[in-house]
């Protein structure tokens, strides 16, 4: 018996052929895969000579020949819950796990399903919507995902539909040197509102390279949360494309805790007047972890607003990169765009890098960016110790305080509380601020 061809290596063509040989799907989808694969072949494996990949070290990933992941059983108890979420989609190794999911009590004018389910019921819906958003054309892992994705979550709200409860989506990988290509497609029609929590997690060594498409029409409102809590040996290379219509509002909370290497490339297109977007990023790193955010916000129309705050807390030899571009097109007057990156280093070997960039082609705009990197304030540490608080706890309190306003921007209580516990656990704090002030 010959081993299956790797789905991630420097020899992709055989993997692609083997993969396609087993697919039963509409021609249009196969065509999309072929186009994506050709795009990947044209782009090639990223090198450090390319500006966009200069600070992302992929050598550890490149040396692996990752296989397509087989089905693997996962206990429900091993997966996190979110107590207000009644809609839950779980994907194990990129494939839908109905037994672990919960899709009852679906509201009207709303579709929450796996891509596979939608394909079976209404192939047109998937074919016409997938890969439709612009952006990330130069991102090789988005192209690989477009080639090898197997399943994903499909969320579609008709005009005016409002979801009261968050949708909880879990992408769990079981490791064993595998590559997993999760998908998420979210479409909010005019005036619709949704609240989504996506979690990436797993065990062992693997790559998750998700692609998320968020299409937010006029007046729609999205609160999107992403918790990257991959296994310590794992790689996470994700792409998010967000397109917003007139008067739409989004909040993206991007929390990066796990993986040996994690990178999210995010491309936002504010494609209507008065669209607003808030990006709240937090990286918590230790050991040799690397976490990167590459963000591009494109203001294409007047009166748009974008607010970005990306923070990182780095211990040991952890590294973070924030690379952000604000692009304001010539007629996008009255744009209000802010970008801020703040980094707290807990060790002399930790390294945080910020590359904020403005490309302002309109003249009547308010745009600003700032970045700061520093160590803990020794005066604050002494102040706490002088009140009897042990040094380690004092430092943990200060780190917690630094990160806490990123968590406070999350309105979804159960998620915020979980993140607070996660952060407190990382800092070996007994209790979170929330426990103590409530």
């Amino acid at each position: 018996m010959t081993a299956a061809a790797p789905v991630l290596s420097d020899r992709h063509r055989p993997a692609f052929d083997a993969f396609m040989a087993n697919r039963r799907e509409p021609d249009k989808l196969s065509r999309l895969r072929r186009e994506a694969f050709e795009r990947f072949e044209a782009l090639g494996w990223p090198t450090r000579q390319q500006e966009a990949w200069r600070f992302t070290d992929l050598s550890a990933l490149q040396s692996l020949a990752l296989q397509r992941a087989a089905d693997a059983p996962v206990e429900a108890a091993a997966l996190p819950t979110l107590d207000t979420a009644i809609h839950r989609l779980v994907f194990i190794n990129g494939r839908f796990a109905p037994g672990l999911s919960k899709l009852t009590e679906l509201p009207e004018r709303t579709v929450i399903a796996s891509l596979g389910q939608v394909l079976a019921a209404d192939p047109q819906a998937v074919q016409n919507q997938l890969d439709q958003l612009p952006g990330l054309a130069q991102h090789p892992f988005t192209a690989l995902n477009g080639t090898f994705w197997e399943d994903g979550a499909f969320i579609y709200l008709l005009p005016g539909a409002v979801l009261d409860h968050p949708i909880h989506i879990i992408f769990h990988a079981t490791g064993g040197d595998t590559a997993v290509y999760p998908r998420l497609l979210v479409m909010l029609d005019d005036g619709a509102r949704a609240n989504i929590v996506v979690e990436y997690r797993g065990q062992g060594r693997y790559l998750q390279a998700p692609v998320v498409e968020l299409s937010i029409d006029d007046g729609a409102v999205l609160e999107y949360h992403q918790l990257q809590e991959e296994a310590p040996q794992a790689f996470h290379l994700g792409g998010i494309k967000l397109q917003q219509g007139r008067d739409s509002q989004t909040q993206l909370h991007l929390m990066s805790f796990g993986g040996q290497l994690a990178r999210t490339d995010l491309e936002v297109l504010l494609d209507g007047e008065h669209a607003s977007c808030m990006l709240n990023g937090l990286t918590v790193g230790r050991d040799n972890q690397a976490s990167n955010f590459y963000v591009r916000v494109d203001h294409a129309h007047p009166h748009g607003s974008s607010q970005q705050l990306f923070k990182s807390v780095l211990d040991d030899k952890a590294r973070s990169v924030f690379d952000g571009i604000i692009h304001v097109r010539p007629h996008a007057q009255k744009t209000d765009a802010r970008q801020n990156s703040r980094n707290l280093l807990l060790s002399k070997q930790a390294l945080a890098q910020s590359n904020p960039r403005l490309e302002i082609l309109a003249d009547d705009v308010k745009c600003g960016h700032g970045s700061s990197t520093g160590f803990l304030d020794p005066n604050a540490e002494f102040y706490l110790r002088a009140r009897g608080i042990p040094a380690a706890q004092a430092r943990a309190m200060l780190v917690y305080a630094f990160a806490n306003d990123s968590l406070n921007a999350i309105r979804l209580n159960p998620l915020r509380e979980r993140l607070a516990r996660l952060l407190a656990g990382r800092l070996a704090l007994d209790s979170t601020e929330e426990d103590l002030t409530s």
Partner: protein
Amino acid sequence: MLEIRNLHATVEGREILNGIDLTVRAGEVHAIMGPNGSGKSTLANVIAGREGYVVTEGEVLFDGKNLLEMEPEIRACEGLFLAFQYPVEIPGVANLYFLKAAVNAVRKYRGESPVDAMDFWDLVHERMELVKMDESMLKRSVNEGFSGGEKKRNEIFQMAVLQPRFAVLDETDSGLDIDALRVVADGVNALRGPERGFLVITHYQRLLDYIVPDHVHVLVNGRIARSGGKELALELEEQGYALYNEEPGRARRAAA
């Protein structure tokens, strides 16, 4: 209770304290006065254990124990308190959380269980009234955006909640109006008792109208130039530190 013997200390290689001898017994309030730069805060920081202050000679005993060997948090747990001349702003740490962490740290050190939530709340409220502090300050970050007066009030509030056995107040009266000054004095006087000692560092005699000291010391050039009773403070107010190599009025102007 606190015994300082022949204390010499340097900051950044410069000798600031040049042999201080001072003994405060339980139940006593000592005032330290002196011109700017004479080493008052240095003394307070050495007692509290701040980094960067190097003791080159002498010793400090707290109830007979060598204070200088203890980490700052151990000193606090042993019952020592410093009201900072410049309280530190700590964004993101709520006052109430901070206080509870401090109270529980001290309790843990003593082998006691964490404070009961209701008891803590009652204590906090009682002490808040004592220092006339608004409840909204509990939810705010420690000292963040506080006015000078609010910061000083917060120091006294912390002292009132932690109930240390020995407190050093470093110019807690500076920049306070008369009402705030009274609050500070009330805070100290409420804690005063046979078990407790205070070292009140001040630039003005004014505070000592409200906190009447048992002893007054004049610190000049890192040395105690003179000691006396409470009348010494009045004398200094009239004459300035001229007698101690300072032109009259300079100290007051510099402090303004």
